[in-house]
C-alpha cells in the first residue's frame, strides 16, 4: 500500500487538471470495479456491487485534485507571475519547487517583502531558468503543482498532496477489500474540490445517491501551540466528522458511524472543524437532499508542501469505510 501512497502523492493534479492522477487511479482500480466512467468535469466514477436486500445506492467521494499555481504573466526577462489554484499560503511558497503539467520545472523567488512582513502572491514569481519571454516554455494559463518527494517517517507519512490523495488511497483500498455488499457503491474520485467542491457537485447529481460519505483530511490539534481549537490528534484513529464550516454531517449517520466503529473495535475520534469544507456538502445538497457524512484523516500542516498523516489512522479509516459499506446502513 505504501507504494500506492507514494505513486499517488507524487503524481501532479492541480484542480481542473486532474488527467494524470485520474489515469493512475483508473489503472489501480480497473481490476476491482464493476464499471468505470468519467463525467464532464473529469470525475472518475467506479461502481462496485448491486443493490440487494436492504442495500441502497452509496456515493463515496475522495477528491483527487490538489492546490496549485497558474501562470498569469511572463515578463520580458522570462520570469513567471502566477495566481493560486485553491488555498495557497504565500509563506509556504518561497524557495519551493514546482512542476508544470507540460513537464517544465522551476523554483519560486520572492522580492519586495520587508523584514518581518508576510509576503503576498504578487511578491512571488517562478524562475524556470529562461532568459527571455521568447525562450520561456511556460505560457499564460499553464498550470503547475508543488514538487516534493514522498517522505516515509515510519509511523508518519509526509507529502505535498496528502490532502487528499490519502483519501483516494483509502477509497481504493476499500474498493479492493470489500468482499460482499448489499449496496450499489459509487466510488467517486472527484475533481476541483479545492476550488469549491465542484466535481462532487456534478458527480452527486449524476450518481443520485441515497447516502453519501466524503473522505478527506482534517486539521490536528496536537502541535505545540495549535491555532485551531481541535480535539483531533494524529494516531487517535479514524475521525468521524460532526461538522465543518461547509456542512453538518447527518446526525443519524454520525451515530451509525460511531456504532460501526465501536462494534468492530476500530479506533475513532470525533471531529468538529470550525473552518474548511468537504465533498460531503456537495452530496448533502444535491437534488432533493441526501444524508451525508465524512471520514477524516487527521493531518498536520495542511496546504503546505509537507502534509503529515499517521499510518495507523489511514489503516483504521480503511477498516471503518469497509465496515460501513459492507452491511446495512441504518439511519
Amino acid at each position, binding site marked *: 500500500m505504501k507504494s500506492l501512497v507514494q505513486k499517488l502523492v507524487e503524481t501532479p493534479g492541480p*484542480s*481542473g*487538471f486532474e*488527467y494524470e492522477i*485520474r489515469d493512475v487511479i483508473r489503472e489501480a482500480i480497473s481490476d476491482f470495479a464493476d464499471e468505470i466512467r*468519467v*463525467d*464532464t*468535469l*473529469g470525475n472518475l466514477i467506479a461502481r462496485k456491487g448491486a443493490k440487494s436486500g436492504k442495500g441502497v445506492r452509496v456515493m463515496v467521494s475522495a477528491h483527487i485534485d490538489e492546490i496549485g499555481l*497558474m*501562470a*498569469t*504573466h511572463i*515578463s520580458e526577462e522570462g520570469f513567471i*507571475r502566477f*495566481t493560486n*489554484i485553491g488555498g495557497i499560503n504565500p509563506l509556504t511558497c518561497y524557495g519551493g519547487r514546482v512542476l508544470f*503539467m*507540460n513537464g517544465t520545472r522551476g523554483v519560486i523567488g520572492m522580492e519586495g517583502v520587508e523584514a518581518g512582513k508576510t509576503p503576498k502572491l*504578487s511578491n512571488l514569481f517562478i524562475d524556470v531558468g529562461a532568459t527571455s519571454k521568447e525562450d520561456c516554455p511556460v*505560457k*499564460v*494559463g499553464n498550470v503547475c503543482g508543488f514538487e516534493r518527494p514522498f517522505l516515509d517517517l515510519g509511523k508518519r507519512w509526509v507529502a505535498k498532496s496528502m490532502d487528499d490523495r490519502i483519501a483516494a488511497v483509502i477509497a481504493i483500498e476499500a474498493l479492493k477489500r470489500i468482499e460482499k455488499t448489499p449496496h450499489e457503491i459509487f466510488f467517486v474520485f472527484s475533481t*476541483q474540490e479545492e*476550488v469549491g467542491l*465542484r466535481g462532487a*457537485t*456534478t*458527480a452527486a*447529481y*449524476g450518481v443520485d445517491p441515497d447516502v453519501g460519505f466524503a473522505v478527506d483530511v482534517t486539521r490536528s490539534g496536537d502541535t505545540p501551540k495549535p491555532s485551531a481549537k481541535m480535539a483531533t490528534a494524529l494516531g487517535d484513529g479514524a475521525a468521524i466528522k460532526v461538522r465543518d464550516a461547509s456542512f453538518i454531517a447527518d446526525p443519524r449517520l454520525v451515530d451509525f458511524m460511531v456504532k460501526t466503529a465501536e462494534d468492530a473495535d476500530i479506533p475513532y475520534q470525533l471531529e468538529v472543524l470550525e473552518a474548511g469544507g468537504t465533498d460531503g456538502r456537495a452530496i448533502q445538497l444535491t437534488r432533493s437532499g441526501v444524508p451525508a457524512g465524512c471520514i477524516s484523516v487527521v493531518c498536520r500542516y495542511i496546504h503546505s508542501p509537507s502534509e503529515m498523516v499517521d499510518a495507523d489512522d489511514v489503516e483504521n479509516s480503511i477498516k471503518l469505510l469497509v465496515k460501513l459499506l459492507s452491511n446495512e446502513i441504518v439511519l
Partner: protein
Amino acid sequence: MTKKTEELSQKLHIGSDQLELLEKLCNATAVSGDEHEVRQIVMEEVKALADDVKVDALGNVLVTKRGSGENRVRVMLAAHMDEIGMMIVKKHDDDLFQFEIVGGIDERQLPGKAVLVGRDHLPGVIGAKPIHMTTAKERENKIETSSMRIDLGPDIGEKVKPGDRATFATRFRVVGPSIFAKALDNRFGVATLIELLKNPLPNIDLLVAFTVQEEVGLRGAQVAAYTFNPDVGIAVDSTPAYDLPHWDEEEENFQYNTKLDEGPAVYVMDRATIADQRIVRLFRETAVEWGIPYQIRQPGGGGTDAGVIHKSRSGVPSISISVPSRYAHTAASIARIDDWQNTLNLIHAVLSNMSPDKIAGERRD
C-alpha cells in the same frame, strides 16, 4: 486580415444599427433584480429571430434557435442583462434619500456622480461636501455609503420609494474607435448574442439566455442552465482592462487583467470556473485559423455565468469570453469597437467549427 475574416466582418459588421442597439441597451436601467427595461428591448429584438422565446420565473429571457443540420451541438450562450447600481433604502427628507449598493461598486467613486432613479429615470445627484467646506483631514478619508445621500429635489422626491433602483446617468457615446458608456458590462454581451441570433448556423442549436442577477451571484444563469441542459456553455461578458502604466513606480504592471485593442479575452480560469481545456483549445485554434486577434485573460479573480453553467446537473463543458473595457463597474467605461467586432467574429467562427467530436472523450489538457 485574412479573406475568411474579411467575409466574417462583412457578415457580422458592427455598423450604425448595431451601435444604436448597444446605445439603447447601455442607456437603459437594469440594476440586478429589476431587469425589465433591458428585457423589453431584448424581447423586441429576438421575437422575429427565434423558434421559441420565453421568460422564466426569475426573469431570464430564454431563446431557442435550432439549426437544420445533422449532429447538431446544443450550445448555451449566456449574457447577463443586469448591471451594478444602487437601491433606495429610506427617505430622509423630501428630497434626500439613503441608498445601498447593488453588486460590486467601489464606494470611493460614488460622491458627486449624477444618477437616474427608478423606472422613470428621475435625475438625481449623489451629494458630496464641497471642497470649500472640507478639512485636509476629511479629504484623506473615504466616505462610507451610509453617509451619502441621493438628492432629487423636493417635487421629484415624492415619486421615489424604497426599493427603487438607480444607475449612473452617463449617456452612451461613440468617440472615434472607442465607446464611452455605463453598463458595457454586460450590454456588450447582450448585444453580441442578439447579433449571433441574427446569423444562425446549421450545426448549432442556439440556446440563448439573457440572464438576470449575475452581479449579485450568478443567480439567473443557474436556473437557465438547468432549463436548457446544454452540451456546451459559453458565457459572453465584459471584463476589466487595466492596461495602464504604474505612474508612481518604475516596475512593470503585471496585473492588467486584459488590454484594449488586443481582441476578445478568452478565459482559462477565474474564481468561479476553470474553463474546459477542450473549449479553450477550440477558441485558440479557431482564432489562429481565421486570423482573429485574441488574448488570454489573466487567470485570477472575478466570475461569470460560466461559474454556474459548468456545474449544472452532471456538468457542462464551459468557458467565458469577454470584451475588454477600462473602468468597469464605475460610472463610465471605455472600450473599442474593434474588440467587440473581433469578439463577435470569434464566437461565430467557433460556433461554425463546433461539432460533437470537439467535446467527445475526457476533459484533458
